[in-house]
């Protein structure tokens, strides 16, 4: 278990509380002082408070005078058991918050008690009350001073601990002396305690700082892992500004880090983060130069932070190549493995270190570890998510692959849901937005209404950030206006208001719709928002606005204050734009407001009246009233509350609170010029100059603390040989006696089984003899013949299981024994003593036989493969991407209008558009074109087949043409075409490659390489190529369409040009724009098409309704909203041509 002194101290009172009767004499405190304490026990004494008031309160509340005569009597007795019992009860009282201060004299007498148990409890009491009874406490000091000289290191340490914890200012000089002495104690444990005492003394008397810094300097030079964490803690508390003290110890701290106890690691890592920020140069200054441009093109809309821009400018000016300081690298390298710590605080500390210090390209490693922490307790989740939220704004790409880990469960606590929502929103980009919006749609139906409200806001933010989906989101939100839950409606109104502000002109329909809502919505904020909208855009709704004002005037007196203010606002705006209709209403409203109870409203009414109603006195302002009220207002920016929070060191309390906490150390900005790196150089003598004591200590520690220096010791070297090595190494390592021959080895192995079963029966003996023979035979083989003989039961068990498994398919159900391997092991060994049970022996025999028959290494490995349970296959998503030919076949069967069939055929094979991949000029004679063949890509149905035609226009042979270094967004995949070995001058080659675009129109970037040159090329698919036709009946189509309504439906009106007014032309154009299949339709002025997206298999349904003349309406239903939106655009464009 852990060694947690404070915890165990805590345990005591509780265990005592549980046993009020003196039945339990054994004390649970033995371990208290023993375990190496960790830095959290280095608690800093608070500044002295006046004698605590609470004790009186407590005494009063308990209602009885604090008289503890019985306890005093017990403490005065000669029997240790009585004393112990008394102390237990007293400590229990303290733990429950009862006042026990009147017992001080009786307790303090026992400080010199020989019984260690009693002594420890007395210490606990002293630490609690010494501060209040300083004079009496002084009586105990001499005991501690004696303790400091005790030969036992544990006693020395505990004396120092208590001495430094009792917070009696008079003993400051004694403490100082004790700390100094302990800092050069031969026991590292005592030195660690000295480090703990430093902050305590400092908080008691800050004048001691200079002397304490000397001690810290000395302890920083300590080379034991035990001391490192504690002294850095002391450093942070006493003199965090003395960064110079770290220089000489920097490399040592980096190297020790992995072996320091976990709490110490957190403190050291946080301190080193700050240190590195002062000593090294930003690793991203030059990278930003190289990468930024590429990345910008890649992510398009991603906003780059100003800091990077600054760095870029700076580096542009300097153009000095950046080389990372080896010490900087050392820190990054040595902290990385700690991402695998079980301690969430350590993982977080490393994560923040990487975030603040690592080159951009390396930061990604922390994402996985942070996502892993999300499975922990909800408090841990809460903190981690806050940090992920901040990180995901700056480095979105890092968490994108883990998008799904942030999906919300209905059982998550609301505060976790809201944080996850924040992260999901931050991660949204053009590629994944449709997935995210679909997920949001399920959230909107949650029973947790706070969460629903937050989701609506999140949709609003996605809509502002990603222009492509703005209309879709807006439509979805408008639909929510008819939701039954008022909160949902209200929240939607507020968000819609913000969205409309961005492009009000196009949305007068929505504004009208919202105007109607004033009759129903009661939530004040929503009402206020609607009124503001109507007022602001009253010219878009000239008829409705005055009517709304009329209604509001009626209900004015019953409205909430914010609504009243907006009514006044609306009245004023209408008065200015449409005074004919609203003059009287406005005056009425202003009169009502004039006598309102709320002075804000009276005030506003007065102000507005003066401003808008022209009188002789109103003066110049009146002229500008319209300008004042109806000025263009900037659209609100919906941004994350976590934006720019990273100016606080991540993982800190200040970051979490978004406010500077007491004692927070600012994270410095990178220096422009690196300070002298030689300060960290350590002279060699200093490294080796350690006292004999330390040498001894380190020698002992070696096997456990020196992983970095390679494994040492015979055992290690034996087993470090590869597993598949010869039989000998296996046996020698497991037997522990390397000299034993393989036969002896067998003996031993059998004995081991005997031990396991406890006894050995005669029957088994013979059987085993036989087995041994077999094994010996096996050993003749070149390969590690039988894993059983290697001497590990484990192996045998595994083997046994293999056999069993292999046997099962053949119908030989061995016997009932199938539970766990543990069971199988114990059963098979014990069954020997059962003398005669058939089944186990059969199994055992088989267990040995089977491997023997597998002689060659090949077979063994095959067996292994058999046994290796591959990750079970995912249920194949019912991909109904049918090959085009099949579609046409089927269509031929059912289509009513057979004359259309050829039209359907043609786009796939006829009117194929080709695109240029590499121009002849750019390719230095090599020209490459591509087209989407619309055939299923062989081998992977999730890939879009891209046919590539390469022509060699040079006069030399082009060799080894291939694709390399694809630079793809997360999730995208490329199946390269096979390398073309050579292409003669004038020749043309045609190859097919597959690209999984992840149902997005993001470009796939890659290099086209020849034996001499590399060309950067990219393929961006038209949205229509991301799908494959699917056949369905009219009924199916209707049914599916019914499921894809709401946000998944996009409708657009269009006018068909002259030449596009025939059945044939329409079908031709639609199918050329998108790889879709026609669906039969009863009505003759309607055209339906269906397809599924290639990657996810989401349905895309297209309906084109041709009304009279040129008017037509196009509807696309797809849960992939982005695809739907883009498809509508493409089809309309195709039809317009």
């Amino acid at each position: 278990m852990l060694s947690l002194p404070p915890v165990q101290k805590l345990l005591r009172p509780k265990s005592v509380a549980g046993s009020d009767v003196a039945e339990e004499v054994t004390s649970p405190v033995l371990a208290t002082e023993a375990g190496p304490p960790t830095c959290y026990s280095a608690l800093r004494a608070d500044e002295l408070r006046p004698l605590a008031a609470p004790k009186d309160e407590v005494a009063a509340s308990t209602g009885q005078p604090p008289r503890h005569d019985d306890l005093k009597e017990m403490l005065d007795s000669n029997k240790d058991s009585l004393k112990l019992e008394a102390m237990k009860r007293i400590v229990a009282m303290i733990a429950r918050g009862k006042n026990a201060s009147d017992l001080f004299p009786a307790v303090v007498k026992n400080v010199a008690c020989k019984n260690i148990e009693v002594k420890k409890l007395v210490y606990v009491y002293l630490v609690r009350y010494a501060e209040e009874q300083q004079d009496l406490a002084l009586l105990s000091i001499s005991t501690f001073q004696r303790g400091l000289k005790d030969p036992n290191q544990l006693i020395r340490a505990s004396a120092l601990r208590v001495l430094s914890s009792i917070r009696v200012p008079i003993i400051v000089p004694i403490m100082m002396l004790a700390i100094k002495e302990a800092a050069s104690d031969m026991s590292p444990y005592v030195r660690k305690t000295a480090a703990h005492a430093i902050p305590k003394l400092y908080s008691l008397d800050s004048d001691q700082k200079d002397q304490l810094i000397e001690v810290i300097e000395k302890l920083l030079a300590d080379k034991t892992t035990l001391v490192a964490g504690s002294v850095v803690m002391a450093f942070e508390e006493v003199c965090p500004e003395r960064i110079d003290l770290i220089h000489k110890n920097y490399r040592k701290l980096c190297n020790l880090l992995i072996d320091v106890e976990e709490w110490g690691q957190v403190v050291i890592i946080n301190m080193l983060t700050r240190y590195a920020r002062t000593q090294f140069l930003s690793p991203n200054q030059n990278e930003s130069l190289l990468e930024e441009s590429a990345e910008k093109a890649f992510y398009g809309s991603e906003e780059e932070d100003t800091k990077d821009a600054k760095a870029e400018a700076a580096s542009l000016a300097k153009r000095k190549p950046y080389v990372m300081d080896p010490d900087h690298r050392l820190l990054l390298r040595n902290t990385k493995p700690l991402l695998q710590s079980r301690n969430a605080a350590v993982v977080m500390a490393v994560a923040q270190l990487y975030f603040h210090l690592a080159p951009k390209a390396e930061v990604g490693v922390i994402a996985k570890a942070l996502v892993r922490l999300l499975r922990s307790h909800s408090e841990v989740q809460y903190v981690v998510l806050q940090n992920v939220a901040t990180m995901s704004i700056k480095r979105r790409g890092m968490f994108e692959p883990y998008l799904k880990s942030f999906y919300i469960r209905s059982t998550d606590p609301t505060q976790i849901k809201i944080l996850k929502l924040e992260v999901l929103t931050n991660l949204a980009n053009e590629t994944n937005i449709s997935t995210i919006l679909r997920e949001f749609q399920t959230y909107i139906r949650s029973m947790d209404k706070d969460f629903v409200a937050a989701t609506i806001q999140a949709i609003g933010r996605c809509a502002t950030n990603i222009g492509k989906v703005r209309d879709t989101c807006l439509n979805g939100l408008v639909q929510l206006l008819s939701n039954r839950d008022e909160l949902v409606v209200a929240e939607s109104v507020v968000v819609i208001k913000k969205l409309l502000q961005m492009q009000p002109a196009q949305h007068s329909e929505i504004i009208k719709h919202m105007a109607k809502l004033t009759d129903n919505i009661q939530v004040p904020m929503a009402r206020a928002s609607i009124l503001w909208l109507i007022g602001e855009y009253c010219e878009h709704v000239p008829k409705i606005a005055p009517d709304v004002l009329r209604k509001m005037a009626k209900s004015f007196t019953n409205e909430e204050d914010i609504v009243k203010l907006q009514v006044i606002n609306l009245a004023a705006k209408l008065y200015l734009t449409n005074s004919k209709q609203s003059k009287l209403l406005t005056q009425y409203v202003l009169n009502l407001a004039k006598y309102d109870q709320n002075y804000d409203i009276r005030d506003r009414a007065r102000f507005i009246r003066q401003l808008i109603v022209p009188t002789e006195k109103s003066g110049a302002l009146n002229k500008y009233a319209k300008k004042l009220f109806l000025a263009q207002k900037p659209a609100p920016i919906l941004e994350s509350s976590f934006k720019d929070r990273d100016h606080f060191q991540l993982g800190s309390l200040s970051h979490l609170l978004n406010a500077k906490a007491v004692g927070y150390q600012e994270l410095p900005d990178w220096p422009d010029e690196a300070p002298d790196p030689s300060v960290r150089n350590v002279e060699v003598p200093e490294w080796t100059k350690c006292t004999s004591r330390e040498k001894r200590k380190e020698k002992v520690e070696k096997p456990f603390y020196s992983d970095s220096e390679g494994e040492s010791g015979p055992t290690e070297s034996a087993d470090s040989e590869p597993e598949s090595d010869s039989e000998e190494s296996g046996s020698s390592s497991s037997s522990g006696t390397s000299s034993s021959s393989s036969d002896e080895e067998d003996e031993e192995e059998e004995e081991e089984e005997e031990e396991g079963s406890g006894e050995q029966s005669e029957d088994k003996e013979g059987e085993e003899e036989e087995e041994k023979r077999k094994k010996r035979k096996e050993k003749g083989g070149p390969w590690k013949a039988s894993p059983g003989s290697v001497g590990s039961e484990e192996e045998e068990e595994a083997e046994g299981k293999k056999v069993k498994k292999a046997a099962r398919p053949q119908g030989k159900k061995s016997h009932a024994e199938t539970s766990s391997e543990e069971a199988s092991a114990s059963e098979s060994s014990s069954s020997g003593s059962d003398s005669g049970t058939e089944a186990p022996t059969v199994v055992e025999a088989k267990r040995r036989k089977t491997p023997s028959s597998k002689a060659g290494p090949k077979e063994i490995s095959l067996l292994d493969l058999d046994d290796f349970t591959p990750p079970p296959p995912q249920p194949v998503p019912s991909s109904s991407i049918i090959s085009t030919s099949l579609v046409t076949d089927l269509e031929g069967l059912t289509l009513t209008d057979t004359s259309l069939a050829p039209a359907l055929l043609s786009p796939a094979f006829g009117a194929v558009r080709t695109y240029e991949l590499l121009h002849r000029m750019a390719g230095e004679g090599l020209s490459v074109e591509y087209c989407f063949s619309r055939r299923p890509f062989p081998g992977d149905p999730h890939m879009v087949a891209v046919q590539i035609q390469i022509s060699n226009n040079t006069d030399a042979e082009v060799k080894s043409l291939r694709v390399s270094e694809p630079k793809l967004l997360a999730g995208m995949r490329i199946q390269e075409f096979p390398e073309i070995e050579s292409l003669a001058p004038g020749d043309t080659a045609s190859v097919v490659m597959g690209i999984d675009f992840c149902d997005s129109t993001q470009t796939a970037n890659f290099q086209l390489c020849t034996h001499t040159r590399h060309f950067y090329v990219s393929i961006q698919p038209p949205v229509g190529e991301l799908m494959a036709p699917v056949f369905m009946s009219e009924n199916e189509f209707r049914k599916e369409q019914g499921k894809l309504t709401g946000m998944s439906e996009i409708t657009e009106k269009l006018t068909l040009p002259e030449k596009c007014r025939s059945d044939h032309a329409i079908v031709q154009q639609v199918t050329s724009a998108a790889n879709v299949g026609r669906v039969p339709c009863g009505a003759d002025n309607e055209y339906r098409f269906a397809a599924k997206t290639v990657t996810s298999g989401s349905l895309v349904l297209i309906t084109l309704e041709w009304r009279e003349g040129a008017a037509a309406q196009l509807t696309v239903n797809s849960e992939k909203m982005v695809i739907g939106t883009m498809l509508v655009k493409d089809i309309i464009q195709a039809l317009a041509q």
Partner: protein
Amino acid sequence: MIHSLFLINASGDIFLEKHWKSVVSRSVCDYFFEAQERASEAENVPPVISTPHHYLLSVYRHKIFFVAVIQTEVPPLFVIEFLHRVVDTFQDYFGSTNVGDQLPTGQLSVVPWRRTGVKYTNNEAYFDVIEEIDAIIDKSGSTITAEIQGVIDACVKLTGMPDLTLSFMNPRLLDDVSFHPCVRFKRWESERILSFIPPDGNFRLLSYHVSAQNLVAIPVYVKHNINFRDSSSLGRFEITVGPKQTMGKTIEGVMVTSQMPKGVLNMSLTPSQGTHIFDPVTKLLTWDVGKINPQKLPSLKGSMNLQAGTSKPDENPTINLQFKIQQLAISGLKVNRLDMYGEKYKPFKGIKYMTKAGKFQVRT
């Protein structure tokens, strides 16, 4: 660092306090109680609360709040993780029957996590590989996200200072792991072998995570038909649970819970097996299914009584599933061998596998 610690029980009594520095009055907890009142449920109390002079960091476990009082900047996870360890220790300590004489008598050992002089007459080492599947299944039955959270818990009772190595048939699966401090990082990095001197007794050797990016087998499916009708005050309710990708193992300990919408007044259901309860107050439906027999799939059918006069609820309930599968690690992880060095005796070794449902939700 932590100033004081208060333990607060479900009824809001501070029943234990401990101060490491000058005493902080209990009244500081009033801020906590305020926050508790604002949060409707215990789990929604913010773990970090800022008060004028202190910061309160708390964890909630076993219906007890552990509230730490902080005065200066400290990494919040440092405190939270520590508090959880405190709770773990309490659990360990009070959970065991032999309170009092079994506390570790920790000497200053060179291996901080293992005391010296350990002696056993029966030397044994057991390892349990336990995997939990976290999944969200959408209404059509396809997996939205699924990941595996695995642990290897050990109970090692070995004399002396044994040095163990544990190797896996398929260590590639373990690409996202966290270790007990006893595990040698470097050895894992280079050879994918767990090499360690174990602590004495029970401990968690390693936990691992198979992320949503990998394919995770889903061993069960739920067929559901939950219908609220607009016009009638009766709704249909039907669920069937069945096995899927179980590698031939039996699914047991199946338990279905679902939070029904507020509009559901009562439910009259008939299970084909197991027992079910619907609590009309909390609207929680619990169906204890037990084992799944693939020949006769368990189902729960019947009707829901809805509040008359109100329109149908617009949300459908989520179904939460629990289950257990013995002798199976669903990720396919398999221990290859366990070897011991440093001591002469032959220990008894055992490995057990188990797969459980973690946070397993089916959206309807």
